[in-house]
């Protein structure tokens, strides 16, 4: 075991990531054996649809968690983005490209709002994001007059945007998602912004006393998150077409679970983009599997809740051991 841990490739990826990949593969095999008809491309494509939007949410919240903060608004805000942009598209005849931009801008606005309150007004992230979760739900409902909004189908005018998810059965989304993850990795590990975000998550006061404008960089993490939530909204409707006001809470937990399972620490300072990607795929497969087993949404909620607790507990106890 020790020898395996010291293997250079394992060390590069990180031991717990390797374990997670093992879990992922094992889970897939179990589902294939246990559920008739689970084997095959269709299920994989279904799972990938889930991976895209959840992945963008999870990548976003990784930046926030890296600062030691949290964002519980991402799921409902994603719906808010999709509702507002979709409403503009359907009711005001805004072109599809501009609608996508609107979705991203709405996400960005929420990111700016959250980040400003957390960084400059020192309102606890938990409170800020709980509040903006409700604000997001409210705005989405008011804007659409509590109607659900459907985005155009493939073939309909404007439906070509669905190519971001798949073209003729080829999952183009996976390429876009991995590219985005790669860029996030570069930002987090190879830029000044990422360095400051990680360091201030670890010891804010020491970073401030090194002459760094910690408020600015902390806010940036929330802005990045908001931006990615706006993108997630587009991927959500590209895969599932319709959004309803007042929903989206469950994706908070799922996105945070993916992030923490991948080795990003809830205490801040440590974050793994690769881990988030693997974590998100695991969570998505799990949701798909639970549905295929016919267990339904409630069981999904229970399982995700338990995963969050277990993953955070594992992180906390690993840290305690280290100190």
């Amino acid at each position, binding site marked *: 075991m020790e020898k395996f841990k010291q293997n250079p490739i394992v060390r590069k990826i990180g031991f717990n990531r390797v374990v997670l990949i093992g879990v992922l593969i094992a889970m897939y095999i179990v589902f294939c054996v246990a559920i008739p008809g689970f084997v095959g491309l269709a299920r994989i494509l279904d799972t990938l649809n889930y991976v895209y939007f959840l992945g963008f949410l999870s990548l976003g919240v990784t930046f926030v968690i890296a600062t030691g903060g949290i964002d519980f608004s991402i799921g409902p805000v994603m719906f808010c983005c999709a509702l507002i942009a979709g409403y503009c598209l359907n009711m005001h005849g805004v072109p599809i490209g501009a609608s996508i931009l609107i979705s991203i801008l709405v996400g960005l606005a929420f990111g700016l709002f959250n980040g400003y309150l957390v960084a400059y007004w020192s309102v606890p992230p938990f409170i800020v994001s709980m509040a903006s979760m409700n604000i997001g739900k409210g705005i989405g409902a008011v804007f659409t007059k509590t109607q659900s909004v459907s985005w155009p189908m493939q073939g309909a005018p404007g439906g070509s945007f669905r190519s971001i998810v798949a073209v003729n059965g080829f999952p183009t989304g996976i390429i876009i998602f991995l590219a985005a993850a790669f860029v996030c990795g570069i930002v987090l590990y*190879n*830029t000044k912004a990422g360095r400051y975000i990680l*360091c201030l998550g*670890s010891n804010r006061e*020491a*970073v401030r*006393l090194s*002459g*760094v404008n910690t408020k600015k960089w902390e806010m940036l993490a929330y802005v990045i998150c908001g931006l990615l939530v706006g993108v997630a909204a587009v991927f959500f409707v590209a895969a599932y077409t319709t959004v309803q006001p007042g929903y989206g809470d469950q994706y908070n937990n799922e996105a945070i679970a993916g992030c923490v399972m991948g080795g990003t620490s809830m205490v801040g*300072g440590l974050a793994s983009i690769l881990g988030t990607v693997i974590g998100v795929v695991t969570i998505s497969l799990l949701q798909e599997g639970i549905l295929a087993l016919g267990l339904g949404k409630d069981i999904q909620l229970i399982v995700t809740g338990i995963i969050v607790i277990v993953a955070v507990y594992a992180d906390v106890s690993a840290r305690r051991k280290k100190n």
Partner: protein
Amino acid sequence: MGDVILTMKGIDKSFPGVHALDHVDLEVRRGEVHALMGENGAGKSTLMKVLTGIYKKDSGTITYEGREVEFQNTREAQDAGVVIVHQELNMVGDLTVAQNIFIGREPKKGIRIDDKKMIEDSKALFDELHIDINPREKMNELTVGKQQMCEIAKAISHHAKLIIFDEPSAALTEKEIADLFNIIRDLRKKNLGIVYISHRMDEIKVITDRVTVMRDGCYVGTLVTKDCTKEDIINMMVGRVIYEEPKTHSMVPKDAPVVLKVENLNAGRMVQDVSFELRKGEILGFSGLMGAGRTETARAIFGADPKQSGKISIMGKDGQLHEVTINSPQDAVKAGIGYLSEDRKRYGIVVEKSITENSTLASMEDFCNGPFINKVKEKKAAEKYIKELATKTPSADQLVVNLSGGNQQKVVIAKWLVRNSDILIFDEPTRGIDVGAKNEIYKLMNKLVSEGKSIIMISSEMTEILRMSDRIVIMCEGRKTGELMIEEATQERIMDKATRNID
């Protein structure tokens, strides 16, 4: 002196990278005041923490009242009658004196707290100790000295049989110390065992019966106080360790230019009207009692805390003083000031990050092309200073959490050297650092000033102040109360000024 109440034998304790206690012995009798002496980092506090269950010993035996014991936590120790009065006070400022004394064991009347009884009991306790404090007062409205008295009263109320005073006098005025000694004499009469930890040689002669000396985590010896001289004790404390020669005169030329001028700085209660100048190549010592406002002054200059008024001027590239506006650490760092905090772990280093990441934290711009970090360049810089400061580490990628205190301090110093800050504020630079590493830090500071940097050194250790400073500023209760050239400075003269405002 009565029979033996406590025997600690062969106590051994290691932390990662530090052998904190190396088979230490201690014996305390009833009715004696037993001094525990040694330099900072000698292991006195660690030994007491092992006794009271805060740390677990690696080996050795503790015999208390005739039975072998191993307290699991301070609560257990307390219940057995072993109580520690810490140098940092553990009081809740917003509660009253009585509430603090009975915290966690409030007298009850049904399910309600019996406030009346609590106050009466506190009064009785204070009367017994001849302390004049109103139990209804809020804790944070008392002076540090009075708070200390409350801490002692609280200890007594636990039916203590063995009381440990961990540097109780560090923050007290002469008058308060006299009161404290009266209480201690009282306790001695009541046949309690008392362990008294202090640096101050004079106090030891006045109040203690026996002295146990520790050095670098080792037991050196135990003496009867009245049979030994100050010099005996100092020799035991310092041992063969060779320090840098104490400074007898300043090496800074009289006409050295002023690099930092602070005028009438005000920042809250702890910084009132402070003015001073720092010259190029100088180590300016800041001396004073705990709570004199030295750290607050440094933090106000550095922009870490807000200030109300005052003018700060710094020498520019043209050799002239220019007034600068410092509202945040960002401004201060830009102006060329670096600050090494007294609390490294909280304010100095990012422990979960590597030496490289810590070294370049204050100067990221120099290691970036646009938004991107040049990792090769930053590692080279980190390695350069690992070599230059002789930081003990396998590589620059090592996480700072794995380094010893002395080496962590070097990483903080490296951070400011990478930034090329000309004015360095060292706040208690050798606190919690073992003796060997301490020497290295001293050498390093001397090297830095010889290269033209200027240093403000805040230190509570008199020996350190007298050894390192070219000039000494003395503060008391938020005001500057004196300034001495090293040639005219003595321990007595500094102490005189450090307690000037009081009484």
